[in-house]
């Protein structure tokens, strides 16, 4: 989900800098990637490939971490002990995904602290979806069902992405995401067949999360200038629109099965293309959220920055203690 390249505006291609890299190395690299070989940390790689990967993997990691907040918001209010345990475990999994992904990005020569700094300064992006608030318990269902569902669509192909550490991280992550998706859907199912109040919450959650979920796949292909390069490098394996279509086609029948209505009057089955037609996405909202103007973007960033700043003395203490220990061991 988080893997789409986010830029501040639609379709503004970056100026191409002429490569000064050794053409022979470049050719060999391109051939290996084209043959679906994995590139490993010690292998030669073009600088632009390295930069794009660091951006994409760190953005993905940040999304996992920021994504802990909207769901964490309901841990204290989960309605049963089982739901509380499942939610805690889910949020913990997302933190674990963040850890593997930071570790994968670090193999490219950027430290976790640098990546965290880029997040807090606003230089690095994270998925737009986490800038929306979780208002009722049904939102926890909707996030698991839709957001983790969209994440799976995006991430399953990345298990075969060209960069070895990223691909391997995705194998672990994908297993857990399918679990999350099922658990979220199960919450929605329980609520959609529950009391009128529960049903209302479930429908309202779908209404609010549907369009932001479709936006998770990133801008339409015609405004996604880096897609071709990323696909050639096997950093991306399907286009944004292909993945979005797949998500709609999988999710619409799931909504119908539990008696919920997808909030799109233009949604209809198109026999000829074997998929659904659906309404226009509000791209202006998407770009506003990418720019940091999402409904709770300020709160999300403040929560992360506060946690980081409030915890500074703990991290310093851990380092100081480790240094004292090492000094004592050496003495």
């Amino acid at each position, binding site marked *: 989900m988080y893997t789409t390249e986010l830029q501040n505006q639609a379709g503004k291609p970056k100026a191409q800098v002429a490569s000064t890299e050794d053409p022979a190395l470049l050719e060999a690299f391109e051939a290996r990637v084209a043959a679906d070989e994995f590139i490993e940390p010690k292998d030669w790689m073009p600088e632009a490939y390295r930069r794009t990967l660091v951006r994409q993997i760190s953005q993905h990691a940040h999304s996992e971490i920021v994504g802990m907040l909207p769901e964490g918001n309901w*841990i204290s209010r989960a309605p049963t002990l089982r739901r509380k*345990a499942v939610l805690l475990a889910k949020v913990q999994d997302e*933190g674990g995904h963040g850890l593997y992904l930071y570790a994968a990005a670090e193999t490219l020569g950027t430290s976790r602290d640098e990546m965290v700094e880029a997040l807090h300064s606003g230089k690095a992006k994270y998925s737009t979806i986490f800038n929306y608030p979780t208002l009722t*318990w049904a939102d926890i269902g909707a996030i698991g069902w839709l957001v983790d569902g969209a994440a799976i669509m995006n991430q399953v192909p990345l298990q075969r992405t060209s960069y070895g550490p990223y691909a391997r991280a995705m194998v672990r992550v994908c297993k857990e995401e399918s679990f999350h998706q099922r658990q979220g859907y199960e919450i929605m199912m329980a609520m959609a067949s529950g009391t009128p109040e529960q049903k209302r919450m479930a429908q309202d959650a779908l209404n609010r999360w549907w369009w932001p979920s479709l936006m998770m796949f990133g801008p339409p292909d015609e405004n996604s200038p880096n897609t071709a390069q990323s696909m050639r490098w096997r950093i991306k394996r399907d286009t944004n629109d292909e993945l979005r279509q797949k998500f709609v086609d999988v999710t619409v029948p799931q909504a119908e099965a539990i008696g919920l209505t997808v909030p799109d009057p233009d949604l209809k089955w198109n026999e000829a293309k074997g998929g659904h037609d659906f309404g226009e996405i509000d791209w202006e909202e998407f770009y506003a959220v990418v720019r940091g103007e999402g409904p709770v973007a300020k709160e999300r960033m403040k929560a992360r920055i506060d*946690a980081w700043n409030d*915890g*500074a003395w703990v991290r310093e203490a*851990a380092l100081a203690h480790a240094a004292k220990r090492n000094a004592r061991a050496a003495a």
Partner: protein
Amino acid sequence: MSGDRARIDYALRLGDDALVLGQRLGEWCGHAPMLEVDLGLANIALDLIGQAQHFLAHAGALEGHGRDADKLAFRRDVLDFKNCLLVEQPNGDFAQTIARQALFSTWHELMLQRLQGSSDTAIAAVAQKAVKEVAYHASFAREWVVRLGDGTAESRQRMVDGLDWMWRFVDELFAMDLVDQAMAEAGVGVDKSTLRPEWDHLIDAMLAEATLERPAPRRGVMGGREGRHSEHLGHMLSEMQFLQRAYPDAVW
């Protein structure tokens, strides 16, 4: 007091300790000083919620009025909660959270070690599984006390303050009332007063490694086991129980 009532209370005490501390630790999720600590605290919370499910389910079954673990967790008010006061104290800063955890988990591990041999087979079974989890909680927390105590000047001061803040709730952990006595005599429970020397030894060893002094003795604050709590518990319950209270007919 009837033996049945005492046994129900005993299971409630074990369950409520775990539930209330698990709930507190869940508040850290997404806000801890570093990702590894966030995951560690969530892990402890998860273990405790699991233990609470088992102990409360057992209490409900003993009671025989059709109350399951969720009914007991989400439909009781403050006066019926039987946890010790230590676990309901607010998280404070990380040092305060760690102080609470080290003091409690060290006791909890000793309790569960003994409870593995409980004549109540349900309690014994939960204890056998939980004791391994809690051994990790105790070592996680004690290691952090050492790091913070023997870290920087700031972390040391915060650790001293955190231990000092929590220390008045220690005596309650070892206090024996009629329920405890009846259960110890029946072989269901533990004579908690006998755990104190070992607890003191473990805590003193931790403090020595952390280069910290033992907080000065003080009068213990008690009452949690009989439902006389601090002001904090009511706020915690109002948040935790909100959905079950607002929608009493709903199934989630």
